[in-house]
């Protein structure tokens, strides 16, 4: 008898680290994923070109099918198939051995995706064995968050919605961001605003797709956004276009700052038995008073003597900083004309409200944290801040930490942790759905110095990635259509929906989900009676935080579609003062209490620029999510190979013609690839869209050019960031033999 074909459509969501977490409808026929359709999302629905190719990724002939153990040397490409039992038994034994020798913190895991249940199960497991969880945000996305933590007191992973969450912005200002290519939800919001009459201004060294849609394209020198923001603030303050009442009510602007130590003046500084209260200068009474005392309006400018102390309102200090960025100087630093700086400043201050969309691009320099600080400050002094929309889900993460809390190691500290054992010796590493050797800076250091220090490298992936190729064990992880998880939103102007990633098909070959693998390791590591619950119960545990944001969020509702956090009372800002802190005591030790402009480590102004005059940019494109999808033939038809994009102004004197083989190089290394000479890249910059692996290049890789220098400010506040766009190089034609 002929079997009836069974068809079903499963609403799921993508956990890939492209960010938005797109909702997807998985169309399954006879247990096979045949097609992906846009997932229903309130008011919209979306699937990108990459998402549509998922069936090609899921059934890709190169998918890893069974666990393998390395034969021969690391990276030699010789493998032998082993059973799951043998692989996990051996890995657990090695972990225990290494842990006994170097301490339990030497056992480390990194996982890079948005499946929050997988991450929590992993954290619980690592807590129980006192191992180390490597935080992945520092691979380019953590600098801006540092600024949000000090200015807003935020806790989001990638950035806050304070500057974007307006119903009908009159101006959309996009900083170093290409959402038209890389973030559907963000672009939909910008596009809708533009169709509603808003002006769109895009600041970018590249003429991106987003720039092509702009009313004004502001061509900026890479790494100088902070200077532009300060120059704009100078125009705004100079022309009295700032929002005095917002500054007084919601920011630290009126708070007096002591000139002797840079701290806010407190009541206890001047009144014996006084409290920690912030002080302001009352313009009516011409005297100092507590900020919350009902009285005349506080001064925003001027200098005041309080007892023996000279004090100035924080806004006065900002005004003085901004005054150091007059038009000519700002223009010289940023490459933006004085006319555009003025018009932009006036338009930004005069458009109510004006939304600022901050991209990861403008914070991928060594001082990228200050760029977000400056943009937040610009928004603060013009009142372009929305208090709504920064509400996020408070999930029950702690429920997974009953057996202990793991050590946390920022990704950028992995190099030191492996090589010199600081802050603890990472000697074994399990990498899941992450490709650090390909995606983190300074590949040569990674391979030549970090790798030899790892006694064990385990890689769980769907494919033989660059990182997997150097592993001791390779474990086949299933695609996200083959397992269930919860997908948390990332904010930053995208969307705030929590979604269920629902299993649509059975795991292919011998592949397993991350959760299954980790749970299989629990007993093997000698941990008893932990993480025994079925998956659904684990998911319910995660939802049951009791936090008001979670009210009404159930698995049942999530099965039907995306869910927003329940409305709940939130402080405007979770800073020490409860206000927007554009002046922060916390960064005083670094000279960054205000958003000062610091040049990139490697920029046109640095000594290295004589030798290597071009700034290397390595942004995302629509054709790949980091290194994922680079192996999908349908996307390769559209974007076949890596190219070094240079402007003819830079190409011509170097004798480079379109299509020539070139080497892009600096003291750290080189990459060889074809040149693409076109006008869309700022003179003085070279662009190589990221995600390619060494095998895609003629030789080398763009990560041979990047560096892993850590900024202590990022380390003090959040996680050190990879300064991926803070890299100087030069380009030369290569004579083909």
């Amino acid at each position: 008898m002929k079997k009836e074909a069974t068809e079903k459509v499963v609403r799921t969501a993508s956990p890939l680290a492209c960010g938005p977490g797109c909702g997807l409808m998985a169309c399954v026929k006879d247990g096979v994923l045949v097609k992906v359709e846009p997932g229903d999302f309130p008011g919209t629905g979306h699937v990108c070109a990459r998402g549509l190719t998922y069936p090609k990724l899921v059934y890709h002939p190169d998918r890893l099918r069974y666990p393998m153990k390395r034969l021969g040397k690391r990276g030699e490409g010789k493998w032998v198939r082993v059973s799951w039992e043998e692989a996990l038994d051996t890995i657990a034994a090695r972990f225990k051995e290494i842990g006994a020798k170097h301490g339990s913190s030497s056992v480390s895991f990194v996982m890079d995706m948005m499946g929050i249940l997988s991450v929590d199960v992993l954290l619980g497991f690592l807590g129980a064995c006192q191992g180390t969880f490597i935080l992945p945000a520092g691979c380019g996305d953590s600098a801006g968050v540092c600024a949000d933590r000090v200015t807003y007191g935020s806790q989001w992973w990638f950035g806050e919605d304070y500057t974007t969450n307006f119903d009908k912005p009159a101006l959309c200002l996009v900083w170093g961001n290409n959402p038209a290519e890389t973030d559907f939800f963000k672009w939909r919001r910008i596009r809708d605003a533009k169709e509603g009459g808003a002006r769109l201004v895009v600041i970018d060294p590249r003429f991106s797709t987003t720039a092509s849609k702009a009313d004004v394209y502001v061509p900026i020198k890479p790494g100088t956004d902070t200077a532009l923001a300060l120059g704009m603030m100078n125009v705004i303050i100079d022309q009295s276009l700032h929002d005095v009442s917002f500054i007084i009510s919601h920011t630290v602007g009126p708070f007096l700052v002591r000139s002797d130590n840079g701290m806010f003046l407190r009541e206890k500084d001047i009144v014996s038995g006084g409290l920690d209260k912030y002080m302001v200068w009352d313009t009516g009474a011409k005297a100092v008073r507590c900020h919350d005392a009902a009285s005349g309006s506080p001064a925003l400018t001027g200098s005041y003597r309080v007892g023996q102390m000279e004090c100035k309102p924080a806004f006065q200090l900002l005004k003085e900083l901004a005054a150091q960025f007059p038009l000519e100087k700002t223009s010289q630093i940023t490459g933006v004309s004085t006319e555009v700086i003025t018009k932009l400043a006036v338009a930004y201050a005069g458009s109510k409200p004006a939304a600022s969309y901050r991209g990861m691009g403008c914070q991928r320099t060594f001082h990228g944290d200050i760029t977000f600080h400056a943009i937040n400050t610009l928004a603060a002094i013009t009142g372009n801040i929305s208090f709504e929309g920064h509400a996020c889900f408070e999930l029950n993460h702690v429920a997974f930490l009953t057996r202990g809390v793991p050590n946390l190691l920022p990704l950028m500290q992995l190099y030191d942790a492996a090589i010199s054992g600081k802050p603890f010796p990472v000697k074994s590493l399990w990498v899941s759905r992450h490709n650090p050797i390909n995606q983190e800076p300074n590949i040569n250091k990674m391979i030549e110095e970090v790798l030899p220090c790892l006694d064990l490298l385990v890689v769980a992936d769907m494919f033989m990635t660059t990182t997997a190729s150097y592993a001791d064990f390779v474990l086949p992880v299933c695609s996200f259509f083959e397992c269930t998880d919860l997908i948390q939103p990332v904010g930053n102007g995208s969307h705030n929906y929590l979604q269920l990633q629902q299993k649509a098909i059975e795991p292919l070959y011998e592949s397993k989900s991350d959760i299954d693998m980790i749970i299989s390791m629990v007993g093997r590591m000698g941990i008893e009676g932990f993480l025994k619950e079925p998956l659904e119960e684990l998911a319910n545990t995660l939802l049951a935080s009791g936090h008001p944001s979670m009210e009404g969020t159930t698995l049942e509702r999530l099965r039907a579609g995306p869910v927003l956090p329940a409305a709940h009372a939130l402080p405007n800002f979770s800073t020490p003062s409860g206000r927007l802190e554009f002046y922060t005591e916390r960064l005083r030790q670094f000279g960054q209490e205000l958003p000062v402009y610091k040049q990139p480590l490697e920029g046109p102004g640095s000594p290295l620029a004589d030798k290597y005059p071009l700034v290397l940019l390595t942004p995302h494109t629509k054709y790949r999510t980091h290194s994922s999808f680079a192996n999908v033939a349908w996307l390769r038809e559209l974007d076949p190979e890596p190219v070094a994009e240079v402007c003819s102004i830079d190409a011509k004197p170097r004798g480079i013609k379109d299509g020539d083989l070139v080497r892009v190089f600096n003291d750290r290394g080189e990459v060889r690839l074809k040149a693409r000479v076109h006008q869309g890249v700022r003179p003085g910059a070279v662009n190589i869209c990221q995600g390619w692996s060494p095998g895609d290049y003629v030789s080398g890789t763009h990560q041979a050019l990047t560096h892993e220098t850590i900024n202590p400010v990022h380390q003090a506040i959040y996680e050190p960031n990879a300064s991926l766009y803070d890299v100087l190089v030069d380009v030369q034609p290569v004579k083909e033999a």
Partner: protein
Amino acid sequence: MKKRYGMVIDLERCTGCRACTVACKIENSMEHCTGIRVETVGGAWPDTPAGEYPELSMGFLPIACMHCERPPCRDACPTQAIYQRPDGAVLIDESLCNDCQECLAACPYDALVYDEDKALVRKCTLCSARLDQGLEPFCSKCCGYGAITFGDMGDPRSIVSKLAARSDAYALKPESKTGPAVIYLPAKASRGFQHGRRVSHR
């Protein structure tokens, strides 16, 4: 009222994301070709602009079969393999196609493709199998930014008819007098810094 299915493509909304291109491939099993390509209106390479830095411009132009009222491909076909359905979709009857490829040359929009895998001429069918199920073509379904709107051009009350009636709506190569059922809306010019509508801040 005579049905005439067609599409309006809003180039202001199109970001060149190529979701339509890939959607077409998967829906129609076009492994190495597609029924809808996206051209870049700009530089020599895809996704590059025209002009000189920083005075640049870049746009995108999705091109599929125009499902013409007077299809030159049909007229050029010696075996009458190409026909038009009553709803307007121009289709190829594969059983009649003799692989002569006259149609490829006849199309002013370069909208037909030769599928090497299947050794057949292929083209956009407006996803006619989906139309028969009451579904829209998969490219318009997957166009997240709403650049592609599908509908009945024969119905003056339809959204596509209203969009196509806009004064700035245009067809490609009007000189070909093919009567295309795919109509374009132009990208908007940059408006400069002039203030947007003022909205009072809450």
